Each structure stands twice: as C-alpha cells, then as structure tokens.
C-alpha cells in the first residue's frame, strides 16, 4: 500500500514538469503581445520597448523558459504583470475561497446525491425512483449560469433569504489568517462572522453543487442496482438479513467505487472550473482571477494558476486511486 502511494507520488513529477512546459509553450505561442495589451491606446514605441524589457519579453525563448523554470523550482512564480502582486500571494489568498466553495458544494452534492441514489435504487421502478432520476437528469442538463440566476431570483429576490454576492457582509470585519473564512472566524470565535460566511456560501454552493449532485445520484443508483443483482447479495437476502443490512452493509461499499471516481473527478473540475459561479456571485476565487489574467495576457499569473489547477486535479485523482486501493484490495497494483 505505501509503495503504491509512493509510486503514484513519484509519477506526479514528470506529469507536472510536462504540464509546466506545455503551459509555458502555449502562452509563448499565443498571439497578442502582453505589453501591447497592457498599454492599450496609449502604447508608443518607447513605452512598449521599456515594458517588454522589464517583463523579460525581449529575451529569446530558452532564456525566458530558463528563468521561469528556475523560479518555479525555488517556489517563486514571480509577480503578476497585471496586479504587481506575487503570484504565490494571489493564489494563497484566492485558492481558499475556491476551496471553501468547492467543499461546501461537494458536501451538499454527496449527501443529497448518494442518499437519493440509494433511495432510487432500492425503490427501483417506483414513483420515488422516477422522480429522483427526472430531477437528476434536469440537474445535469441545466446550464450553470441559468441555474445561478434562477436561484438568485428565487432565494435572493422573490424570497430574499440569501445574499446574492460576495463572501461576507460589508459591515463584518475580522482579520483573515488562512483566508479560509469559516476557519478564520472559528479560530477567532467570531460566531456572527461565521454565520454570515455560511449565509453567503449557500447560494453559490448550491449552484455549483447541483450538477455533481445529479451525477453522483445517477452513478450511485446505477452501480448499486448492478451490485444488488449479484450472487452474494442473494445469499445475504437468503440468510434473512434486513433490507437495511443488505443494502448499507453489503451492497453500498462495493457500489461506491465507481461513484468515488466520479466524486474525485468532479472535485477536480470544481476547483478549477468554477469561473461562471464565481463571476455571477462575485466570489473572489481563483477561477475568476485566472480568467482576468488570461484576458490581460498576464502570462506569469496564467502559468502559475494553470500549474496550480493541474496539480490539484492530479492530486484529486491520486486521492481517488488511493481510496480505491483502500476500498478494494484487488486494485493494489504492486501486489500483482
């Protein structure tokens, strides 16, 4: 088991190296001079040359890549061209916002999705099954921006229960330490702030969680149905076990493996793909920041951001692999 995990960790290194090279190459090849984009209508020969020189854009490819790569190895991603800020600081301040949102939405998605999936599988063919699967199909097919606007309209305007933008009310002040606001508020025992943070978290988390919720529900139902048809389940029934024991003890654990893959993948997607939700709810996360960086041709920020998201995605997959191995001993490849 440990060797398996270690091997998977070592295989991360070439993956991430490859990603960093590809990211650098793509940004180098993309048309549009960052200096020209930054200066806009005001660009003139002198200001362009000076800006290119200070950004190192006048250097040949291999020099630029060498600088980027040595910086990367020493953990220094440089400063953003657009915001003068250190890329690492930008990421450390924004990633927690994205992570908190992802956790909240995955929590909702998993709780509701898994319960609904089990419920539907057990009541296969009945109204409950049909209803939950219709809802799940609707959930998958809904475009995120539309869902966000509908939820805002419903729970922010007609029934004004929740705030429609931001992480915090404007009258709330507390010192951010980790930038995980829920954690920061609890560390400082500021329960007013904690409540306010959860209150702001609700709508964006529900928006972001709906699609994974639906995917998880369908996956759980399908794989549980498959497992419920297997011989050992028939044996369990034959032993006279209660439905509860059969489903929860014997079937769910085995049915959970494919669901876990889906959860890990969705988790990875959400951490990087929350741009629309973050934009609509003015959520100061990493997706929106990266989007603005791409627009401004802020190549250093894009390199850092993409590298971060790729790492997170790869790690989420690694975690899923490790969990498989734990759930299903047959997957421990090193014993083959």
């Amino acid at each position, binding site marked *: 088991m440990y060797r398996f995990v270690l091997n998977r960790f070592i295989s991360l290194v070439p993956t991430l190296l490859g990603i960093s090279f590809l990211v650098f190459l793509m940004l180098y090849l993309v048309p549009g001079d960052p200096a020209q984009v930054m200066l806009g209508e005001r660009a003139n020969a002198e200001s362009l040359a000076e800006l290119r020189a200070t950004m190192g854009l006048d250097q040949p490819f291999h020099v630029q890549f060498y600088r980027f790569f040595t910086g990367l190895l020493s953990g220094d991603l440089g400063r953003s061209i657009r915001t003068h800020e250190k890329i690492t600081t930008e990421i450390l301040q924004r990633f927690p916002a994205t992570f908190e949102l992802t956790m909240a939405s995955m929590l909702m998605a998993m709780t509701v999705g898994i319960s609904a999936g089990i419920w539907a599988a057990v009541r296969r063919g009945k109204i409950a099954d049909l209803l939950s699967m219709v809802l799940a199909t609707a959930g998958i097919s809904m475009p995120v921006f539309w869902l966000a606007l509908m939820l805002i309209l419903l729970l922010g305007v007609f029934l004004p229960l929740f705030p429609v933008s931001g992480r915090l009310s404007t009258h709330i002040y507390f010192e951010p330490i980790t930038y995980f606001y829920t954690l920061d508020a609890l560390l400082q025992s500021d329960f007013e702030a904690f*409540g306010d943070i959860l209150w702001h978290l609700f709508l964006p988390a529900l928006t972001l969680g709906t699609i994974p919720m639906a995917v998880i529900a369908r996956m759980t139902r399908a794989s549980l149905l498959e497992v419920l048809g297997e011989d050992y389940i028939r044996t369990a029934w034959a032993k006279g076990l209660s439905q509860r024991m059969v489903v929860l003890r014997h079937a769910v654990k085995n049915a959970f493996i494919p669901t876990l893959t889906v959860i890990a993948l969705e988790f990875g997607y959400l951490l990087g793909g929350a741009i629309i939700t973050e934009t609509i709810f*003015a959520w100061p996360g990493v997706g929106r920041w990266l989007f603005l960086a791409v627009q401004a041709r802020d190549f250093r920020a894009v390199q850092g951001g993409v590298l971060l998201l790729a790492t997170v995605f790869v790690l989420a997959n690694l975690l899923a692999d490790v969990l498989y191995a734990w759930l299903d001993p047959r997957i421990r490849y090193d014993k083959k």
Partner: protein
Amino acid sequence: MIIPFLLIVLTLAACGSEKQQLTTLVFGRGSDSVGLDPGLETDGESFKVCDNIYETLVAYHSESTAILPQLAHSWDVSADQLTWTFHLRRGVHFHDGTVFNAEAMLFSLGRQFYKDHPHHKVEGGYRYWKDMGMDDILAELAAPDDSTFVIRLKKPNAPFLSNLAMNFCAAVSPTAIKKYGRDYFKNPVGTGPFRFIEWRKDERIVLARNDNYWGPKAKLDRLIFKPIQEAAIRFLELSQGTVQGLDNLNPEYIDEIRDNPELQLLTQPGMNVGYLAMNMDKAPFDDLRVRRAINHAVNKQALVDNFYQGLALAAKNPIPPTLWGYNDKITGYAYDPNKARALLAEAGFPDGFETELWAMPVPRPYMPQPDKIAQAVQADLAKIGVRARIVQWEWGTYLDKVSNGEHPMALLGWTGDNGDPDNFLYVLLDKTAAVKPAQNIAFYKSEELHKVLVAARISADRDQRSKLYQQAQEIIFHDAPWVPLVHATQTAAFHRGVSGFKLHPTGSKWFHSTAFTP
C-alpha cells in the same frame, strides 16, 4: 441536509444584524482595483479609490477641469514661464502621521523623474508619467524650504499644470514607500479625506474617514468599494439596498432607474471620443473628397440610438463638449448619402470601391459594442457603394497593426487624461504623432495644424489657448481625417438618500462631500 443547514445559517445570520452600524457607503463596480500606488496605476478602477486617499498640488474644480489649489495654496510662474514655484499648505499630515512638506513632494515626483532615485526602478515603469511626456517637460525639481516646491521646465508648457492635478502626481508618504517597498501598492498612505483600512482582493476595499484631515472632513464614516462583475447582480444589489451607488451602468437599466423613486440617476457627457480613422497614407483616403464622402455617409445619430440607448452624443469634433476650447460653431458633416455619392463620383469613384473596415475585438469605454458599430457603419457605407470588409484581430495585435498603419479604415477611441484639449488634439492628430508606431492612426500630417497646436501648448493665456484650439478644430473639420463618431456618456446611480456626489468630466470619483440625508 439542505433544510437544517438553511435554518442554522438563517439563525446565525439573524443574530448579527441588529448591531449599530457606521454610516457606510458601499459603491459597486465591475471590477477590482489593480493597485493603489498612484504612480504605477493606469486603470480607472484603481484611480477611483486613489481619488479619495491622495491629493495633488493642484486639483480640478468639482464640476470642470479648471485648476484650483489643493496641497499648494498658491503658485507663481516666472516671466519666462520656465520656473513654477508652489507655496505649500502647512499643517498637512499623511495618514501615517508623518508631515507633508516640500521634501515629501520632491520624493513623490522625484521617484518617477530621476533615474538614479532609489525608488525609480519598478517593473513596467511609471507609465502615466511617461505617457504624459513629463520627462520631456521637466528639467528639475527642488525643495528650497519646507513649504516651497519648485518645478523648472525645459520649455514653456501650459498643459503641464493640468497634469499636476492627475493621480500620478499625488503626494505619497515617503516613509510608507520606504517601509513597504514593492508592496506599497496595497498599503497606500496619502493626505486625502479618507484613509485606507483593508483590501480583500476581488472582494472589497475599505476606506475610513481621515479625522485629521486639514480641510472640511468627509461626512461618511466608511467608504467601501465592492467589485461585482455581473451587471445584473450589480443592479440587483443597488435595488435591494446592499449597495448604495454604482457607476458605468448598462443602458438596459437606465429606464428602470428613472422609474424607481428610490433611486437617482446622474449622467454627464464623458471626456472621450470614439472615431473612425481613415489612413491618409493609403489611396483612396488621400483624397479629401473621399474622406468627406465617408463623413457624410455615416449616420451617427442611429449609432447613438441603437448601440448606446441614447447614452452618448453624436460627435462633430475630436474633443467632447465638456472640454474648454470646444468649437460649437462647427456644423459637422450631416448624414447625407446623396451628397456622399456625389463627392465619390467627383473623386472618380462613381461606383464606389472596395476596402477594409477594422474593428476592435473588445468593448472599450467609448465604444461598448465595436462589432455592432462596425456592422452599422459597413451598412451605411454600402449605401454609397463603398464595399467594406470588416477585419478583426486580437486586441494586442490590433493595436500593433493600426499603429503601424496596416489598415485602410479603423475604429478606435480615446479617453482624456488631464482635461486639456492638447491631450486629445496633439496626442491623436498632430503630425508628430503620425510616426510609426503612431497614435495618430489617420496618419494626418498637417503643418498648419501643427503650428496652431504648438502655439497653444506654449501659451499661458487660457483665452488665447481656447481660441487656438477652436481654430485647430476648424482645420481638422476641413481636412476630415476621421469620422468623429460619438462621445459616450458617463453614468452613476445612487439611492435617493445619498447626496453631495457629483460626476466629474475626468471620471474621477470624489466622495468627500457625499452624505446620507434622511
């Protein structure tokens, strides 16, 4: 799962809402500031905040671009117009408690001017300082005593005083810059009516009233700038009262704001121009009759009505009417396709010709929908037989190519900086700006105009300058290097209870007189 969560959240949220609140104004906007070092920034969202933290030697009048004293209570100009002596206000302190004096002013401008200044080297450079040509204007800065600051010029330059009122010439605390170094942009310290409290990126910037301010103190306890990218959500927050002010409103919300008794709408013609430049280095645009024909062919009022929902003014001059020196006697080229066709025939194109119309790929403040404007202009030109193919490039490439004159016709625009007509006419239409990479993308090279613009630049007499600029507009009207299209209107909306806020032609947002009235 969701319902218990909902209950907990609502209960917790309800606990805090009865607290005593400070008088706080939350101002919503489309995006966050880039930084708060006035010397480094170039974008409006940064200056909007800097406007309230910093002050300059001289300032604009609250409703025009006339120049008034601020940190300098008066100034003298030597007879040769080369030495400007500013007498500084005493008893002014930075927000960090240090004293504002001539040394501090020398530091604030000197870091941008002197190449050997310890704080001169910054990534990207002090861009506004360079863009406004300060290196070519100034010869020397001096602080002979605590309350006297002297600027010596290389040659007489009248627009220079307006430059001093701009954000990049603001007084910054030397102590703070030495302390924070490259991180000063997020720890700004000025002398203005509000001081900086906190900045959570993409979330909010909080300012508090400066209780030690030398002038009349601000009426708000707190001023918060909150970025909300989605226009619909921004407007929703304004209607719900969680945000009390907004700017750059989408035209679609204007009627709703007018109809809502709880809201008030402020509008003012903006200090900008959107134009269609014809490349005079290329045939057939080297022919005056062709350029005039194109001018007669474009229906500007239709552009204003269809793509700005009325929130713009059809342009006849390169400078907007909010600027002094605007020549209202010029009639402009009326929309007249028949006359346009006649002019084309006279120029030897009875059946029109084929050409390209270049359009920006991104919305700009002076032209929010450039692709649609391009299509409308294309249709107008088709009516007189000019078959224009629309060409678009990625934004950086576009600017690069038009500044090198690769286009026959191109859309572009300008937002004024310092409220001086020189900042439009000299920058965009003088022959010295037609050298590649050019800002004069019509490649219009008029010796006559150059003489007038240079004379206006060195004269210190405002009335005389005004006359010269009116003359310049006549020359430009006659030569028709552009089709001046529109001046986009700037807008803001506030809650009924908010008073004392005024829009300014430069787009500055000052909140020191803003208050809540019951």
